[in-house]
């Protein structure tokens, strides 16, 4: 049962993604990419959990994962903000 629930969530999320992302205008496609980059840094949640499972090797893998994911989250959101700040009207 849990499996089917989680698949349902996955499929629905894809549809929501298609709906909202087709509405992003071409002029914002670069910030969309860097922003979605930051969102894929959600792997940080998994990385935090990973540091406590899988024994010693798991801890090391988890640590590197935390570093990678944090680079994504912090760098992604910051650079997106830096870009969006520049989009001005007349």
């Amino acid at each position: 049962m849990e499996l089917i629930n989680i698949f349902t969530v996955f499929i629905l999320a894809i549809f929501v993604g298609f709906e909202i992302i087709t509405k992003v205008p071409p002029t914002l496609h670069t910030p969309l990419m860097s922003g979605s980059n930051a969102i894929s840094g959600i792997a940080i949640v998994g990385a935090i959990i990973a540091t406590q499972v899988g024994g010693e090797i798991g801890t090391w893998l988890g640590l590197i994962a935390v570093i990678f994911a944090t680079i994504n989250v912090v760098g992604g959101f910051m650079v997106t903000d830096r870009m969006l700040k520049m989009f001005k009207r007349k």
Partner: protein
Amino acid sequence: MEYTNIAYVLSAVLFILGIKRLSSPKTARSGNTVASIGMLIAIVATLVSYGHLDFKIIIIGMIIGSIIGAFFAIKVQMTQMPQMVAIFNGFGGGASALVAAAEYFNPANPSTFNAATIAISVFVGTLTFTGSFIAFGKLQGFISGKPIVFPGQKILNALIAICLVLLGTYTVMGGSDTTYYFYGLVTLSALIGITLTIPIGGADMPVVISLLNSYSGVAAAATGFVLMNNGLIISGALVGASGLILTNIMCKGMNRSLTNVIFGAVGLVQETSASGDGKQMLVKSASTEEAAMILDAADKIIIVPGYGLAVAQAQHAVREVADFLEAHGKKVLYAIHPVAGRMPGHMNVLLAEANVPYEQLKDLDQINPEFEDCDVAIVLGANDVVNPAARHDKSSPIYGMPILNVDKAKTVLVNKRTMNPGFAGIQNELFGFDNTLMVFGDAKATLTDLLKELKEL
């Protein structure tokens, strides 16, 4: 545990609302903030709810990651944004693969389903990681931007793919000790990320980056299935969908299928040597002084920026010229082709950096009717996207690609450094048209000269 899941749902909702606000440049910045709050909620909820976490390790990791991430975000130049996104895709994929690998070593695991999701996550994540680094290297110029091909490349890829399927199956079904299969899976995933990316040329990078962006989402979603975590699944699905939509837009912008981009290796000399029909083209060149006089007489001017503008860092120079022309009562618009530059929206960001108002940036469908009554079209470092051969020459590699109809303008000023053909390796017939004048030189230097000449008129 319940509360954690509520927090994940909340952060997913904030991601969706954040992306929704990206539908307009007015609300976009607040959208990014909304999404980042969503991320903060997800992180805090995880830290609070999981017992016996080793906070020391996590905090060290976060500090190192924050420093590196912030350094990149502050230092990167807007022209280098494609490389930055490429490398970040890699880190995202890498993080997902590492999480899945850590779960592989978790002794508490081992349902078949769990092992299968781990294998998929490690495969997609590792492929994204190495593929992104190759893309980064190509964009940064560490490795040649030209397609790297060798005999038997496709066969090699097919062999790696077969081995990957076998190793994946053994990792999942292999019984008590599957460690060696697992290492093999990691190694070959890394290898195929490289072999799939090296044959792709520089100007096809928008497609590759979009695709790798999508993969980094897929990897996160796959890791979500490993951990049975809704937060990762929803976010991964959003990013996966986003990358896929952008990939599709880029492919349409080049009138090529995704398979053609990945396996076509366009841009190689041998592919276009047949088109060397020896037809000589008479090209007229003009000085910046003449160009200034033509612009002085014009009322409506459309600027077409291309990758050459980014390379020359000429976005500020072009805005200064445009400002001067506008101050003298002329209408100035910018025509942005979907695949101009090295990633989706690259030109828009560059021009936004130079304070060009976004209302002036028009996409293909909006701008093409405007060329009919346009006095001067200025093409800056763009080539294939303005080649009229795409409309009529069935033998041209870019036939069918939607182009900007600059040739419809009364006069076309083309700024290029040399007469070298564009990325697709074909000569642009536009340069020989009666209404075309070539202004040779570096984009930035030429525009600075042009502004000086305009002021002297």
